[in-house]
């Protein structure tokens, strides 16, 4: 509806100007504010070199789904979205997205696109979302505090024993200085940073077919125990328990945290706004060092009902050009196309290399009930984290959370 209107008005404009050129087409696009740092740059470059024009509107991440649903019901949905990739299955299942399988598979570099994105973007064997921006979870360590604590500032933690040992050593500096930080009351943050501790052991909290909750395993218990030991050793600041995510980044940037769970996004902010910060980036390790990561970011999706996909195809191809991959890397998104990643990262902070490699090893839960299971502040994931990290009955809490997750999974037909 909106598209037709803009098309008509664009047509009227060109006719009015008396040009004989083909009618200009305007595509509307919505995106969450998280990508505000680089999407405008990409769109500007695209608009400058194409007759098709893209118009972007930014929406706070918490409101995007509701706003889109309302707009779709009223027939005024945007043509395209930069959508948090974890929502792709739910949107596809609801019949809101256009099938991009043919466009995607026609790309000569299709097999080089971020597997985590493609996996999350695939529903029922068809591709509804292709990678746009990428962010992987990593650990940051504060090199200055490491030096003060008598640790080697150039070597971050490589396995669980080292995390514990180094966090305690930093905590021994005393006062307000703590060894390890995570946002204890933030469901999404911990899906991003705590799931990798479970994945690195080859386990997961939901079975591969997405039908069974598998929380009650020695691997989950092991990952819980390392956090419990860090908390018991007073290596985690007390405020972490109730941090709903507001200090997810700022706690480490404050300069008195030894090791913090974080994401690639932090590299860009630290480099530009905290230039004095002397920090390192490493993988979230397993007990013996196997790295793992949550492959996050946005998928590019198209609203169902678009007939002429030519312009969309052009835009997709444009995003993956080496120039754009480099531009986005400069402004804080990891490359999503493997064969040009090295080229895109050339000359940039070497720490991006670790994050990009983590992205390649990354996994993303793909489920239509992502919000219910992981993201919800009232969901079983957060309840499990809080009770098992800070409660007295770990096994009981795990069983209760598993039961709740199972009932949610059973509700999906």
């Amino acid at each position: 509806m909106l598209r037709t209107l803009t098309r008509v008005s664009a047509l009227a404009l060109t006719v009015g100007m008396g040009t004989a050129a083909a009618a200009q087409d305007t595509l509307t696009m919505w995106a969450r504010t998280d990508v505000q740092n680089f999407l405008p740059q990409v769109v500007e470059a695209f608009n400058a070199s194409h007759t098709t024009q893209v118009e972007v509107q930014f929406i706070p991440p918490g409101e995007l789904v509701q706003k889109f649903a309302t707009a779709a019901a009223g027939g005024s949905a945007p043509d395209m979205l930069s959508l948090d990739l974890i929502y792709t299955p739910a949107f596809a299942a609801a019949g809101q997205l256009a099938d991009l399988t043919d466009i995607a598979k026609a790309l000569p570099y299709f097999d080089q696109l971020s597997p985590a994105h493609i996996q999350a973007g695939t529903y029922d064997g068809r591709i509804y979302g292709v990678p746009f921006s990428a962010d992987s979870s990593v650990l940051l360590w504060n090199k200055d505090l490491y030096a003060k604590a008598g640790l080697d500032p150039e070597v971050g933690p490589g396995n669980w024993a080292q995390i514990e040992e180094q966090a305690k050593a930093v905590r021994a500096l005393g006062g307000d200085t703590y060894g390890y930080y995570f946002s204890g009351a933030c469901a999404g943050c911990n899906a991003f940073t705590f799931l990798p501790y479970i994945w690195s052991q080859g386990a997961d909290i939901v079975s591969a077919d997405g039908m069974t909750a598998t929380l009650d395993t020695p691997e989950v218990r092991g990952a819980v125990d390392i956090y419990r030991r860090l908390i018991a050793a007073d290596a985690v600041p007390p405020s972490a328990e109730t941090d709903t995510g507001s200090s997810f980044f700022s706690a480490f940037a404050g300069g008195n945290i030894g090791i913090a769970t974080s994401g690639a996004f932090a590299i860009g902010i630290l480099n530009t706004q905290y230039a004095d910060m002397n920090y390192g980036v490493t993988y979230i390790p397993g007990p013996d060092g196997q790295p793992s990561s949550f492959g996050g970011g946005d998928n590019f999706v198209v609203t169902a009902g678009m007939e002429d996909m030519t312009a969309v195809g052009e835009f997709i191809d444009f995003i993956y050009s080496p120039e754009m991959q480099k531009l986005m890397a400069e402004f804080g998104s990891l490359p999503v196309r493997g064969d040009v990643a090295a080229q895109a990262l050339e000359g940039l902070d070497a720490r991006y290399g670790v994050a990009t490699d983590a992205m390649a090893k990354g996994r993303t839960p793909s489920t239509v009930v992502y919000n219910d299971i992981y993201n919800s502040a009232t969901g079983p994931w957060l309840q499990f984290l809080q009770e098992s990290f800070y409660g007295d009955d770990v096994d009981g809490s795990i069983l209760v959370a598993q039961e709740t997750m199972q009932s949610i999974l059973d509700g999906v037909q």
Partner: protein
Amino acid sequence: MSQAAPAVKSRRRMGSQRRREMAGLLFVLPAMALVLVFFLIPLCMTVWMSFHNWPLMGAPRWTGLDNYAAMLKDRRFWGAMEFTIWYSIVATIAIFGVAFPLALFVERPGRATAIYRTAFFLPVVVGFGSASLLWAWFMNVDSGLFSPAAVAMGLTDEPVNLMATTDGVFWSIMVLVVWKTAGFSMILLMTGLQSVPHDIIEAAHIDGANRFQRFWRIKLQLMRRTLALALILSVAGSMLAFDQFYIISNGGPRNSTLTAVYWIFSQSFVSFKLGYGAALSMVLLVILVIISIAQLWLLRSPTGDAK
């Protein structure tokens, strides 16, 4: 309302009465239209939605009473309901416990009492959202007010993380709610106290009733309607509590401060199950209506004129 009644012929009287009824109807028509558009139609739509599997996106599917059946097994909802009722009882007692003495204090006219009245009422005009944000900051263990102040005054050696315990969250929010809403109940109760005719009190005084008897047997009895109004508003407001818990505690720690409306919101807009959320809303509505009727019945006047 004087009317030259007996002299007027009955036919003309009928006519004028009908005209008056028509005029009355015209006056309430705009209000009725608003109630229809903003209350009755949405209410019917909610009932209609509650019989569907109604996702936020995609097509709704008729499921009959499935949502209501699912609710019976929804332990989280009943847990939230139990918490909400407990919260409403404590909040109402606390609000009345503060508002009644305040009402007695500011009942008499005078310049000083006018200042007190304003001061006590002022928190009411602060939005619940802003007040909750303020409180969330006060409650922060590192950079807030309560814990650092307690440490600075030597009341405690260790910082107290109020957000980490159910009691910490519950009582902090209780203080916020009383601070924020007691002023409103105070004004209601004050007008109730003022509406008691002075001559009755004076007569009781002459008959030898003491201060306590005058308050308990006369004033309180004569302001039943005001009490009922203040009570129902307070209970209904507490049963629908959402903002402060959403902003301050997120229903935490560990879902222990999850209210009924929070769960409805979460089911509707986080889990995208609008139909189920609608069914939960209907049940909450019915529970609230029953509680309100019970309160009106308990506070009915012995002579039966309270409605």
